[in-house]
């Protein structure tokens, strides 16, 4: 029975990696195919997650489909947990695909919170990549622990970018941290 599952998974993966060069498919057709590929990925994970990991890595390295790449990244991070940290860090540092990098930032916070904090801090303080800066702030908010809350407070007080400061304030308001109210009141009552 396991053999049948494995064969099905291989077929699904083959289907995902097949491209159709020279054929310009209609948009709907392309969307349908992308949806099918994603479903095949899900099926693969449900059936045999251990064997799915090398395939997911393969898809992440070789597919040209950015959406599929992102899905593979999320699944992989979910499956590997803490082990995915070096891969995510590499994508954040080296990938040219901004969306994939953003996805990696979010995945980083979800999979290995303790290791993620210093990475996220340095991303928030890096003004050269404003899109990643804001995503890192979202990821920090999702960490939802005392250290991330302290860092959000620090960002709200001292970050050079006004928009980042404002965003940090909003996340503080949503954080459910008992210290949020007092901090916000301090900002409101601060002397001009």
């Amino acid at each position, binding site marked *: 029975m396991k053999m049948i599952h494995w064969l099905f998974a291989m077929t699904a993966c083959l289907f995902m990696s097949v491209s159709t060069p020279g054929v310009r498919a209609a948009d709907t057709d392309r969307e349908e195919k992308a949806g099918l590929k994603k479903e095949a990925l899900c099926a693969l994970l449900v059936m045999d997650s251990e064997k799915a990991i090398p395939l997911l890595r393969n898809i992440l390295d070789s597919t040209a489909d950015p959406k599929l790449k992102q899905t593979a990244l999320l699944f992989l991070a979910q499956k590997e947990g803490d082990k995915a940290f070096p891969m995510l860090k590499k994508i954040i540092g080296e990938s040219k695909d901004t969306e994939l990098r953003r996805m990696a930032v979010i995945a980083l916070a979800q999979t290995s919170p303790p290791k993620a904090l210093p990475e996220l801090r340095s991303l928030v303080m890096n003004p050269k990549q404003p899109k990643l800066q804001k995503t890192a702030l979202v990821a920090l908010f999702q960490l939802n622990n005392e250290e991330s809350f302290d860092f959000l407070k620090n960002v709200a007080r001292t970050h050079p970018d*006004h928009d980042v*400061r*404002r965003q940090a*304030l*909003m996340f*503080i*308001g*949503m954080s459910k941290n008992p210290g*949020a*109210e007092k901090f*916000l*009141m301090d*900002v*409101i009552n*601060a002397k*001009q």
Partner: protein
Amino acid sequence: MQNNRMTKTLLGLILILAAAIMPAARVIRPPAKGEGLAARWQWAREQLRKDSGGGPALIVYAVDMGDLEHHCNRTKKSGQTLGSCLGLMPEKKGENRTFFLFRFSEKTNGKNMEGVRLELADNDSEAPAGKAPIYFLGTFSTAESTTLLKGFFARVKALKPAQKLLLAMAIHPNHDAVVPFLIRVAQRDDRPKIRRKAVFWLGLHPTDRAVQFLETILTSKGRDDAPRQAVESLGLNRHARATAVLLNLAAGDRRQAVRHDALFWLSNKVRQKMRAGMRNTESKDSSRSMRVCALTALAQIPGDSAGDKLAALARSSADPHLRGEAVFWLAQREDPRVLPIMKGILDPEKSPSPTG
């Protein structure tokens, strides 16, 4: 030799300047002066038929709206402005020209105005693209303009052009002509969407008659959504009585949706009032904007403690902007403490009525 070059450069500059000031060649003006808008419109229609068999062309006229804020496309892109294209001098202080552009195409049936596209623009809007001739009729009074537009509205059956004409009528500040028109449309037009729009546009006219009519909608047995539309219009209306009506509705109307909407529009009025005296630079001030943002974040925290802090800020913050925001967010939480605070700020007894 050098003098000769200087003269040529000067001549070139003068020519460029003249080209910039002169109206575009495709702008055609009526020959006779001193005629009213209706007569000039007739002239343009006949001319258009003779020149191009009905279109494509534009008939344009301007109205000075005074201080009234209106909803035109103020985003000027690159290129010539409408005002300079029509050869008009720049607006003086207190002048607020609004242009009514009627686009005719080959398919246009001028008799019932079907297919004529009406656009609103201002002095700084971009000049119309293309080579279609522009018949510019001149600048007219609001009374002449509303008379012409009323005539067009009566002939239009299709929904979209009728909505545009209604908007064009509504932005005129001569309440005596516009308010009875809008009320008549709100009561008698056979198109429900047009009736709704007419109710909405009454919000632009702060007069007793407009507010009285909106009050009758609140009490009459009609469509279920009619009272909420009337509340929206009262929310936009700057008349002191509109505020008083909203305060009563928020305090004790039996319909929950009406109470909720009244509270929302009142909180908007408070916000506007508290920002009214503020200069643009003050409202964009970085430290204030951070404090306002912190207040918005505070408002997202559920529970009594955050509510108490918002209420305290709404009652006694020294910064009017912050106070207005606190009232707004307290109202969004439907906190019962907000209504007395709103009453204190809006106080319709003391607020001057904008017009009779």
